């Protein structure tokens, strides 16, 4: 085990190759899901509408991680930091500068893009567990940085900031929760379409080429450094927008809402939804929002253990996440059509 000895290892990949056509849903299924998302809030209580809003928001954050990991093959445990930056950008702009909530979203996106792009620079040198550690460091540092004294005037320190919930515009006769839900839904759909198209574009193909084989990609003329940092930037921007929406929905930002636990939840959401399968993000988000509640319902004292057991069940039954179910479903549908 001498230190200088060099070892030749087979280049096995951490993230399996997902063909780009397998990353999305068919048009029919997409429209059906969209219809459910559009109609559902009319029939349920405000609290459930709030939960559905959070579902979309976490879905966006999981989607962002999916672009980074499933798309470009880079691993991140630091998504909570980008989420926090987005949330704080919105909160500070709304409360200190009276900027309209809708306008803060693109600003948060741009700020987070820059942040992610810059963070991607040193991360270029690292991969696998080393990258995991670097992003992990970012996630643990973020709540402490937000508490720093000289930022307290803007961030409110440990206390955080209270965000005002926007009213429905044009005098629409719907509740604040419902308006926010539809607003979030529109943003989510826009970002989903953007992401699908991004992964189908030249840049998306470059991401996937890097994921599957970095050396081959650079031999084909893909600027590996640029696209890797770009993937970080895009992922951070989408996470930041999710963070902004989250701040508006929860009406409150505080450093301790954005700890490493959030980053781990997002990671679990991605695995449960299926790495590299964009529509799975919403399934993953549902898992990380509802399963802890279900676990708590089954046993208060052992909620952690119940959650762990449920998670184990899911990964035993479908190691590839919800994508596996979708593939099986598609095959069944195909068979039925033939008969």
């Amino acid at each position, binding site marked *: *085990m001498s*230190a*200088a*000895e*060099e*070892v*030749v*290892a*087979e*280049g096995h990949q*951490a*993230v*399996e190759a997902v063909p780009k056509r397998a990353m999305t849903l068919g048009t029919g299924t997409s429209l059906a899901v969209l219809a459910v998302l559009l109609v559902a809030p009319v029939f349920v209580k405000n609290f459930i509408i709030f939960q559905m809003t959070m579902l979309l928001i976490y879905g966006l954050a999981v989607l962002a991680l999916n672009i980074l*990991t499933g798309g470009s093959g880079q*691993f991140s445990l630091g998504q909570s930091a980008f989420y926090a930056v987005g949330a704080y950008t919105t909160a500070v702009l709304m409360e200190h500068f009276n900027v309209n909530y809708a306008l803060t979203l693109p600003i948060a996106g741009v700020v987070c893009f820059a942040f992610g792009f810059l963070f991607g620079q*040193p991360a270029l*040198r*690292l991969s696998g*567990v*080393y990258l*995991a*550690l*670097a992003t*992990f*460091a970012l996630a*643990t*540092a973020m709540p*402490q*940085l937000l*508490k720093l*004294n000289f930022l307290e005037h803007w961030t409110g320190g440990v206390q955080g900031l209270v965000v005002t919930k926007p009213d429905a515009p044009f005098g629409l006769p719907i509740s604040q929760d419902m308006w926010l839900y539809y607003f979030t839904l529109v943003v989510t759909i826009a970002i989903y379409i953007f992401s699908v198209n991004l992964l189908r574009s030249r840049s998306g193909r470059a991401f996937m080429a890097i994921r599957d084989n970095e*050396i081959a990609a650079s031999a084909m003329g893909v600027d590996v450094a640029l696209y890797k940092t770009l993937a970080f930037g895009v992922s951070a921007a989408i996470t930041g927008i999710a963070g902004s929406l989250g701040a508006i929905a929860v009406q409150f930002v505080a450093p301790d809402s954005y700890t490493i636990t959030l980053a*781990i939840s997002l*990671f*679990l959401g*991605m*695995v*449960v939804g299926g*790495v590299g399968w964009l529509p799975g993000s919403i399934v993953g988000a549902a898992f990380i929002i509802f399963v802890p509640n279900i676990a708590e319902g089954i046993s208060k*004292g*052992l*909620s*952690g*253990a*119940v*959650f*762990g*057991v449920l*998670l*184990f069940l899911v*990964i*035993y039954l479908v*190691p*590839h*996440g919800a994508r596996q179910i979708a593939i099986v479903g598609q095959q069944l549908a195909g068979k039925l059509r033939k008969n």
Partner: protein
Amino acid sequence: MELFTNQVLAGIATGAIYACMALAVVMIYQAIDHLNFAQGEMAMFSTFISWQLMQWGVPYWAAFVITLALSFVGGIAIERILFKPLAKAPVLTNVAGFIALFAIINSSAGLIWDFTIKQYPTPFGSAPFLGSQLISTHQAGMIGVTLLLLVGLYFFFQYTRIGLAMRAAASLPESARLVGINTSWMIALGWGMAAAIGSIAGMLIAPVVFLEPNMMGGVLIYGFAAAVLGGLSSPFGAVVGGFLVGIFENLAGTYIPGVGNELKLPIALALIISVLVVKPAGLFGRHIVKRV
């Protein structure tokens, strides 16, 4: 200058904790090629078992040996029952499995032994070591045990048949299988050893940080950082990394203005990342050359 020496000594004392944990992390990384997020919780659970044994009147060293044996068996059992079925699943699914294991162990320990903080005895006493106020005999003993463990592991891997077989199974599984090594059981053995080393780390750390279900949270992070800094392929590097992280942390807390206890961890991590940017395989890690 005296402040500096004192802080370095204090850093070595806390570093010993991290070194212990880092050693366990590297052990399992060698065997299974993943970082086990539940490692700290496994160590915590082992420590609780030894505490329970002592509550029942078993003397310290007997409890120590029994816990070691139970942890070894427990580690193997976890691998056989929970993780062997996931051997063919994607890496990220395995990581999710570690997180699930973390939640299960943490919450069960909380239910069995509740979340109150408990005193844990030390076999080395807690008098000042060689007249120094900064290092107690317990901490000196902890450093001693860590170094002993390191030497023991070195001989195990370098000079025993089974150590060689484990190294072979980890570095080139297919070739190892061809020469008749049961690679699947080597992985289980790696889990068992990692659990046993973890239990030693837990029992040595518990007198310092006190016994409770969340005692390992912070320690494990430093242990990971130490292992990565030293190089994940080198047990020696892990121990050196552990001491370095301990020293970093203390010096940063003392000399950089505005760094309270809160910012110690981010600064230590930032330093480690700057080291990794220059040496991506860690200080003592082997550079892995990929076959194209």
